[in-house]
């Protein structure tokens, strides 16, 4: 009797990564259902968008190059902030309120969940809703 083909170590890692991406995509798509959310994306530690994106039919405020710069800057900020976790406690979320948008980021393991909303939202309520939806609270 021949042994069944078992997945190799590399295959297992690929399967795990694929499951993780699928899960991230589901989380982002679930957030995009909310009318106030324009963008929900998962950014990896290299500053690349690995799941999610803009809501269908939504026109991005920034171009692709600017978006890439934003992801890179976000990852840099997150890593620099971690230096102060010991004193201030870990970050639950960070946000910037701007004239045309509210941008909120949530550290999620090695990745960052980035959400952009319309400007007239209550930051705390929106952040709480997102955390509950993605299983962070």
């Amino acid at each position, binding site marked *: 009797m021949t042994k069944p083909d078992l997945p190799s170590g590399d295959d297992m890692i690929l399967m795990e990564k694929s499951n993780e991406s699928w899960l991230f995509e589901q989380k982002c798509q679930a957030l995009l259902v909310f009318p106030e959310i324009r963008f929900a994306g998962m950014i990896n530690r290299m500053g690349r968008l690995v799941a999610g994106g803009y809501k269908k039919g939504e026109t991005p405020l920034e171009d692709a190059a600017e978006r890439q710069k934003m992801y890179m800057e976000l990852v840099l900020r997150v890593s620099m*902030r971690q230096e102060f976790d010991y004193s201030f*406690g870990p970050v639950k979320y960070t946000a910037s309120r701007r004239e045309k948008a509210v941008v909120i980021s949530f550290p999620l393991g090695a990745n960052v969940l980035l959400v952009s909303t319309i400007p007239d939202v209550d930051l705390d309520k929106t952040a709480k809703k997102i955390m509950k939806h993605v299983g962070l609270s």
Partner: protein
Amino acid sequence: MGKSEMSGLVQYPDYDKKCKKLCEEKEIRFAGIIDEGGKMVAGGFKEGLTPLEKDKHRLEEFMKFVSKFSLLKSFDETLGPTSYLAARREKVILISFPFPLTKITLLVSANPGIDIEGLAGHIVDIFDSDEARFAER
């Protein structure tokens, strides 16, 4: 750590008064003005309070970090100017308001139980009469 220990000079007496007024609030731990180089030039910690970051050098590094990122104008054209940046951490809430004309930043820290929007509104009520950045918007 008080202001005299950090810079030895109050460069903005009006802001210093407003920072002190903010520090009278029960939940506010710190209210200070930081210059472009990350040096505190007005305000300070609530009297009798022990900072969460006890190491003076690390606290200065943190202020440099806050100033650097608060004054960045990277996405102002597309997302509009920044009203404030906020971080909800386990032990504290941090909120910073960039004053781009004078290249200084107002940094406020508060106990984590309070609402960021409410805190931001209160800070604006106290500061907005002086700063032209609000008129810019």
